[in-house]
C-alpha cells in the first residue's frame, strides 16, 4: 500500500509537470506594448540572421562581398551607419571562413571607429580579430565582432554620442538584409526566405531613430534612411507562416540596396 501511495505521488508530480509545461497563457495587448525594447537585446546581430540562413543549406558567402568603401567620411551619422554595415561584413567574412577578408574588415572597422573618436581600447580588439583570424577561431571571431560592436556603442554613449548607437544597428541590419536577400535570390528556398519577416524589428528601429535629436534627424542621410525604412517595413511584413516569393525577395533586396548606396555615397551627406 505504501509503495502504491509513493507511485501515485510520483505520478501526480509527473502530471503537474506536464500540466505546467502544456499551459498556454495569453498576454493582453497593453502589456505587450509596455514590454522593454532595448538596442542591446531586442535588435538581433547580423550573426543571428546569418545563422538562420545557413540552416536549410550551404550559402555562398563570398559571393556577397562588396568592393572597398571610402574611409574618409566626415559626417558622424554616415560613419555610424557605415560602421554597422562593416561589422555585418565582418560576420559575412567569418561565415565564409576567409582569414584575409576578416583581417581587412577588422582594420577598416577600427579606422572608422577611430574617426568617431571612440575609445583607444578598440585598438586591442583589432589585434584580437587578427589573431583569431590567423588561428581560424571562427566562433571566437563571431563573439569578438559582437563585443567590438558593443564596445563601439558603449564608447559612443560615454562620449554623449548615444544618438549614433541606433544608426550602427540600423546600418548593420540593412547590410545584413541586403546580403541575406541577395543570397536567397540566388538560391531560393521557402525556409530561408522566412527569415526575412521582421516587421516589428523595422518598427523598433524607426521608433529609435525618431527619438534621436532633431538636428541629427534633420540630416539628409538620416532623413533618407528613415523614410526608406517606412517602405522596407511593408516589404518585410508577411503573415506568420508565409514565406515571401522570389519576386518579393527581389523587391526587398532592391530597397535595401538603394539605402546601402546612399549610406556609402560620398556625396549625399554633408
Amino acid at each position, binding site marked *: 500500500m505504501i509503495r502504491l501511495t509513493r507511485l501515485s505521488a510520483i505520478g501526480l508530480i509527473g502530471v503537474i509537470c506536464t500540466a505546467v509545461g502544456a499551459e498556454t*497563457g495569453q498576454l493582453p495587448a497593453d502589456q505587450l506594448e509596455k514590454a*522593454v525594447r*532595448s538596442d542591446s537585446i531586442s535588435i538581433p546581430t547580423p550573426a543571428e540572421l546569418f545563422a*538562420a540562413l545557413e540552416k536549410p543549406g550551404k550559402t555562398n558567402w563570398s559571393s556577397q562581398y562588396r568592393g572597398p568603401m571610402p574611409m574618409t567620411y566626415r559626417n558622424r551619422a554616415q560613419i555610424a551607419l557605415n560602421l554597422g554595415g562593416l561589422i555585418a561584413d565582418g560576420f559575412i567574412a567569418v561565415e565564409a571562413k576567409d582569414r584575409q577578408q576578416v583581417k581587412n574588415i577588422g582594420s577598416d572597422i577600427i579606422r572608422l571607429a577611430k574617426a568617431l573618436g571612440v575609445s583607444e581600447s578598440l585598438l586591442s580588439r583589432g589585434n584580437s580579430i587578427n589573431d583569431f583570424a590567423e588561428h581560424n577561431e571562427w566562433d571566437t571571431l563571431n563573439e569578438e565582432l559582437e563585443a567590438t560592436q558593443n564596445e563601439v556603442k558603449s564608447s559612443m554613449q560615454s562620449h554623449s554620442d548615444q544618438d549614433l548607437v541606433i544608426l550602427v544597428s540600423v546600418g548593420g541590419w540593412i547590410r545584413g538584409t541586403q546580403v541575406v536577400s541577395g543570397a536567397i535570390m540566388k538560391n531560393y528556398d521557402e525556409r530561408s526566405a522566412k527569415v*526575412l519577416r521582421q516587421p516589428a524589428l523595422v518598427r523598433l528601429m524607426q521608433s529609435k531613430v525618431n527619438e534621436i535629436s532633431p538636428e541629427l534627424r534633420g540630416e539628409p542621410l538620416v532623413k533618407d534612411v528613415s523614410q526608406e525604412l517606412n517602405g522596407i517595413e511593408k516589404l518585410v511584413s508577411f503573415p506568420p*507562416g508565409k514565406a515571401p516569393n522570389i519576386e518579393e525577395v527581389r523587391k526587398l533586396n532592391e530597397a535595401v540596396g538603394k539605402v546601402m548606396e546612399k549610406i556609402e555615397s560620398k556625396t549625399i551627406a554633408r
Partner: protein
Amino acid sequence: MKRLLPIFLSIVVLAAVHSLRAETDAEVEARKTALDLAGAFANDGFKTRDGHWCGTVKPHDHALVAVNLYAGNQYWFSVGASEPSTKITVSVYDETGKQVPTETHNAGEKAAAGFSPANSGQYFVSIDLIEGREGSFCLIYSYK
C-alpha cells in the same frame, strides 16, 4: 539634539549610497548567474549574445522583454536573479501574446526557456518572480 542631527543625516546618506551600490552589485550578481546558466548551453553549440538586459521584478509579477527572432534558429533565454528574489521562471509569448511551448529549466534563482520559433518576428520573454521579494534579474540569450 542639534549635534545628533548631522550624524543622523550621515547615516541616512550612507544608507542611500549603500543601497544604490547594492542595486548595482545585485545586477552584476544576477548577470553572473545568468551567464553561468547560459554556459551550459554553450557546451551544446549555442552562442551567447554579448547583449543583456537587467531590470527588477516584483513578487507575483512579471517583467516583459521584447526580442526579435529568426525561424530556423534555436534559442535559450537564461535569467539569473539575485537576493532577495529566490525563485523565478521564464516563459515566452509570440507577437499576439499567446504563450509558446518551451523546454524549461528552473532552479531557484536561475531559470531558462528554450524553443525554435516556427516564424521569424517579435516574441516576448516573461520573467516571473514566484518566491522572494522584489529584486534584480538579468536576461541573456543564446542561439544556434
